[in-house]
């Protein structure tokens, strides 16, 4: 027995030392990757999540649901500079889109939530957003026989804050937008985008936009300082807490003005742009990026082409164009 165990340990050691082969790296020919179709493994849970996502009872006064600020009909955002919470209270920051949010490396502009599970509880308990608390939410949902039934189907322990979040997350994970014209182009349909749009994409790469905006979500997988080449916040003025970004999470001076690079998918629909919602048009935001992030002199013709390219990133949800 003892010898057998020793042999076992030796084998473990062996596997340990041999666990560093050259790890195959995923190389890419294009910095942007097509979005896959959502994976629907648990339709009941997703349906429950869909209902909760649209459920105003989750808010303190029963007026606001997740969908109030992340409407699926307007690109997953409210198209306001800053969102309005209960009692019309203005929020501190521009609402990021819920579409493709599961592809983000972290959640919120400042990345304070590790994943959607961590994010989902945030707005519900934020006094200026949905202004409620779990005790109240559990009570309200607990009084609803339809929810009781649905929760019982998906969870053994019924209605709990974790289960509410899990259902919402399960739904949000299906909010992918595949099938954009640009994805079609990437997948081999060379006619899916026009020559000008393709030229815009070439410029997008040449200017170095893809240094940050890359991957499936064309962003969302990197943190970057806003205003590398020129001081954006000095030019804009009126610096608030929301402008500090990652600094608010890490309290580390070098993380000041560092934000999660936002996704450019469906960018055509998610105006106004930037964390402060200061750009109402794509032309304006591309110009800002050229000045503050790339440190180059903006060229109007190039901006026009890049914006044309950006508009090819609008995908579909449930088979219909957004």
């Amino acid at each position: 027995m003892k010898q057998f165990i020793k042999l076992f340990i030796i084998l473990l050691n062996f596997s340990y030392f041999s666990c560093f082969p050259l790890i195959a790296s995923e190389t890419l020919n294009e910095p942007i990757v097509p979005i896959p179709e959502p994976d629907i493994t648990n339709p009941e849970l997703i349906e429950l999540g869909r209902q909760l996502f649209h459920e105003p009872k989750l808010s303190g006064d029963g007026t606001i649901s997740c969908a109030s600020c992340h409407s699926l009909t307007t690109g997953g955002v409210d198209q306001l500079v800053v969102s309005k919470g209960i009692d019309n209270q203005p929020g501190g920051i521009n609402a990021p889109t819920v579409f493709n949010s599961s592809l983000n490396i972290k959640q919120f502009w400042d990345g304070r939530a590790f994943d959607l599970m961590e994010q989902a509880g945030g707005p519900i308990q934020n006094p200026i957003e949905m202004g409620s608390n779990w005790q109240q939410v559990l009570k309200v949902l607990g009084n609803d026989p339809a929810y009781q039934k649905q929760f019982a189907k998906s969870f053994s322990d019924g209605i709990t804050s974790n289960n509410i979040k899990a259902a919402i997350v399960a739904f949000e994970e299906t909010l992918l937008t595949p099938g954009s014209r640009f994805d079609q182009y990437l997948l081999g349909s060379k006619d899916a985008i026009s020559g000008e749009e393709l030229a815009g994409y070439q410029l997008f790469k040449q200017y170095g936009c893809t240094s940050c905006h890359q991957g499936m979500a064309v962003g969302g997988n990197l943190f970057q300082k806003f205003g590398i080449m020129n001081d954006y916040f000095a030019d804009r003025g009126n610096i608030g807490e929301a402008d500090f970004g990652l600094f608010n999470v890490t309290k580390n001076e070098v993380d000041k003005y560092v934000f999660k690079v936002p996704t450019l998918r469906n960018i055509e629909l998610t105006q106004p742009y930037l964390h402060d919602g200061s750009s109402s048009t794509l032309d304006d935001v591309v110009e800002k990026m050229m000045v503050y992030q790339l440190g180059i002199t903006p060229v109007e013709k190039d901006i026009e082409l890049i914006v044309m390219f950006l508009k090819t990133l609008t995908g579909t949800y449930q088979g219909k164009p957004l």
Partner: protein
Amino acid sequence: MINSTVKSFLNVCVVLILIIVAAKLFLSSWVNYQIHKSPIEKVRAVQQEAANVIQNTLLMESGEHIHYDYLATSEKRTKIILDELDSPELMQFITAVEETLDVSSKIKSTFAVFQNSLFFFPKGIALIRNELVINKQMHDLISKVDDLERAVMQFTIATVNKKNTTELYAQIRQLKTDLLLLPEMHSKAITQLLKHTEVLISYSMQLQSLNTRLLSNKINTHAQTLIDSYHQNEEHEIQNAIQMKNYFYISLLALFLYLLGLWWKKHNSMVIKLQNSAEELEEARDVAESANKAKSEFLSNMSHELRTPMNAVIGYSEFLVDVAKMRGQEDMIPDLKKIRFAGGHLLNLINDVLDLSKIEADKIELSLESTSIDALLTDIKTTSAPLFEKNDNRFEHVAVNQLGEGFVDKTKVNQILLNLLSNAAKFTQEGTITLTSERITESETDYFVFKITDTGIGIEPEKLEDIFEPFTQADLSITRKFGGTGLGLSISRKYCELMNGELSAESKEGEGSTFTVKIPDKI
């Protein structure tokens, strides 16, 4: 009783404790063995993911197209496993991994900017050079731009030391001063280039230090320490588990032995009890056998030793009466008759005692035969007639119905009825003795019922059952007054019972008694 309850309670307690100990030992041996398997696997998984992140970060910096999504997935996976590994001994390891992930993500951001500036820098240089050449004004500036380009390229590509940086900054400062001499449009291009130069220098230095941090991570060291300690622990736990398992087997054995002991004790006590009771039974049997033997011997002795002389006494007393009559010695006759009477009485007594003894020794055997009971009754009436004359009694026979045939012991029935009739005659003076005979059917069986009713002295109710006991008469004076052995009724009842019948009596003191004999027509 209390003692045995306490004992069994204690036994149950001991058994329960042993079972609990065994179960606990079994569980602890198994659980401990399992606990330390998963952390090692998780530490290894984290190690592998972290290695993946480091490798891909370095590949990305060397110009490979590494997808951020790919790195991000690795980071996420690592974070998820790290969250599960929340234990104080892992703190150093977790901190090292988290720092590595942080450095890697900073390298990503820094490198993105650095790359862009690196991409822009030659273009900026070319632009400025072009314009300077066109203006043909600042020939010395061109050489300075050349110097700058060379220095920056060296700086970014080759290993940097502090001297290079200082030289480079001096050159940039000099260029800045010279730029003031240029027309506005050119100075804008220069400013842009200088900004990118600054970014290149500072970000390149950042990357250098980040890379140093990335490569000098202590993940493997901490992981190795952890795994070593886990292995030690694991071996220790395995040893413990083996020991626990041994204890478990020992406790099981103890439990088994204890139960065996309990069973053996119980089994033994039962065997002893059985042995004892068997011996007792044997003794009792021996006693009973010897008693029976003695009784049988006594009975056979009685028959021979008592009856023979009694027969001689009776025979010779009768013979002597005849002799006395013949010789005219009349005065001797009363004395001889007394001897004859006493002898007859004694013989009767002996016969009765013998009969009773035989019944009690189960030596009586019924000689059953088909008999006409009516004829039997006629015989009895004839035989008993002299009895009634003695006390001037009247005898009546009431036959309710024909009795018919019966499969009975004729002699015994005869004896019972004669005994009862003689009793009735004995205790009645100038009265009436009635014999009622009847055949009845009760629950599918035919019975002969004989009722002997007298108008004699009667029996007290409380003594009514006593009269059936041997040697008991209602009153001690009765024996003297009426004679008799006091065995007749008990013998009669025993005979009735032998024939599955019954003999019962009812009486009213001073008014008379009724004895009822009930015998089935066949046995």
